[in-house]
């Protein structure tokens, strides 16, 4: 991989394929998390989906396409043909969005680990209007740090094995839930809730990366928290 390339540009063609079992397991955990913790999406106003890929707002939250602005830093991800329709697509960094303040009723991101951080939370806060909702999921440090230590890879990057056999590293920051809460609070959010979620019981196939960590921790694969569901409100 050369330094100019965005890892997700290289992954775009196959990111949503069943071949990437860990991602599909995250999808299953996300659907179950939203079922367990239903969020009240404001009935009106624009929704910004950060790190959107092909878009998941319709699938997970049932939001009308005309309300959705999709944003991604990967051109190839934004160019995926089979995608959810939307009002607008923006090619930009989620931590530095070229849009005016307080325009969105909801900022949503599914698997925000490539860009999670104080600057992103502050940017989400800036973009949300008053009483706006922030909703996101991110892989847990409990699962990811254990796996990366086990695989002896850098803890701030995720490793994808492609169908062609190549290994692609992408940025991925894993933050403990108490620090996520502190960061959201520091950014100005209220009513912060970070909840851990495991793989649903009927999920198949299960990623070996999840199995490996569960075995290491001597717990069942459905007892290992793999994602955090994050919700917060702008006062």
């Amino acid at each position: 991989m050369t330094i100019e390339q965005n890892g997700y540009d290289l992954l775009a063609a196959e990111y949503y394929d069943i071949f990437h079992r860990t991602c599909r397991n995250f999808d299953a955990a996300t659907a179950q998390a939203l079922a367990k913790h239903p969020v009240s999406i404001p009935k009106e106003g624009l929704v910004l989906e950060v790190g959107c890929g092909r878009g998941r707002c319709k699938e997970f939250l049932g939001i009308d396409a005309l309300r959705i602005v999709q944003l991604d830093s990967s051109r190839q991800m934004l160019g995926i043909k089979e995608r959810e329709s939307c009002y607008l697509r923006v090619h930009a960094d989620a931590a530095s969005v070229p849009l005016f303040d307080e325009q969105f009723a909801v900022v949503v991101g599914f698997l925000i680990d490539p860009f999670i951080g104080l600057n992103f939370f502050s940017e989400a806060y800036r973009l949300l209007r008053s009483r706006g909702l922030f909703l996101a999921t991110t892989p847990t440090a409990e699962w990811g740090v254990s796996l990366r230590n086990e695989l002896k890879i850098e803890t701030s990057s995720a490793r994808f094995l492609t169908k062609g056999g190549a290994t692609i590293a992408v940025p991925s920051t894993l933050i403990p839930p108490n620090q996520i809460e502190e960061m959201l609070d520091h950014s100005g959010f209220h009513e912060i809730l970070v909840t851990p979620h495991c793989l649903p019981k009927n999920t198949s196939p299960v990623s070996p990366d999840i199995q490996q960590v569960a075995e290491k921790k001597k717990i069942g694969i459905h007892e290992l928290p793999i994602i955090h569901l994050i919700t917060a409100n702008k006062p």
Partner: protein
Amino acid sequence: MLIAVLRLLGIRTRRQFRLTLRALAIMLGVGSGYAIEILIENHLFWWSALPFTFVVFSTFFEFILADLITEHNYPIETEEKLDLLERQLGIRAVETISEKLERMIQTFRACDRSCMSGTLHIIVELAPVPETRTRFGLLQLTNYVGPRGGSKGRITTLDQGIIGRCARTGKAEYVNFSDEYEYRRRMVEEFGFSMEQADSRTTIARSYIAVPLFLNSRVVGVLYFFSTEPQVFPHAARESNLAESAQDLVAILRTASIV
């Protein structure tokens, strides 16, 4: 004492100091030569021996003594410069600076403070090189506080890095890299390092902040922190009042006649 007088005269760099000594030697030599001429015209041959000794002294001063004095007060070699700084500063003051850096790290919010490292750089004159006769650089005065970073004595030229940018602009500067590839690319394209130099630094750092130290409206140093955690700055330092803390450090450096 000599340094204090020179500072009063506005002489701060090695080059300015050496030129001042040269001017003194020339004035002494020319004045003594003129005195010799007057004394000889008046047939005071023995008296002319006195200014003659001044001519000999000024020659000796310009060609030998002035270089030695300059080297003593403004050593070129980094290590000597650092030793001189530390002698002037004293071990206790260096420890105080490190303690203050640690306390500043504890003021950062909503980040993992165990990932944070910091140090202090001061502006020094570097040995002239053929391309530019006088260059200034930033000398790392203390070892890094925190888990990462190189040891004291590292030199960074003013055209390199976020600390160089901070010293040039006189404003707090920050930068965040999302991964190692972005770090390498931007260190070369934006921050004036070669790929080798970029690799020799802490490649896993992701967030950086540099705050200028001012003395009489002049930048005399840079306070510098970095974290291996991404997207920390500027938000984590929002309530830290780094500018005020930087001026506390200037007071210590000033007491020790470092700046």
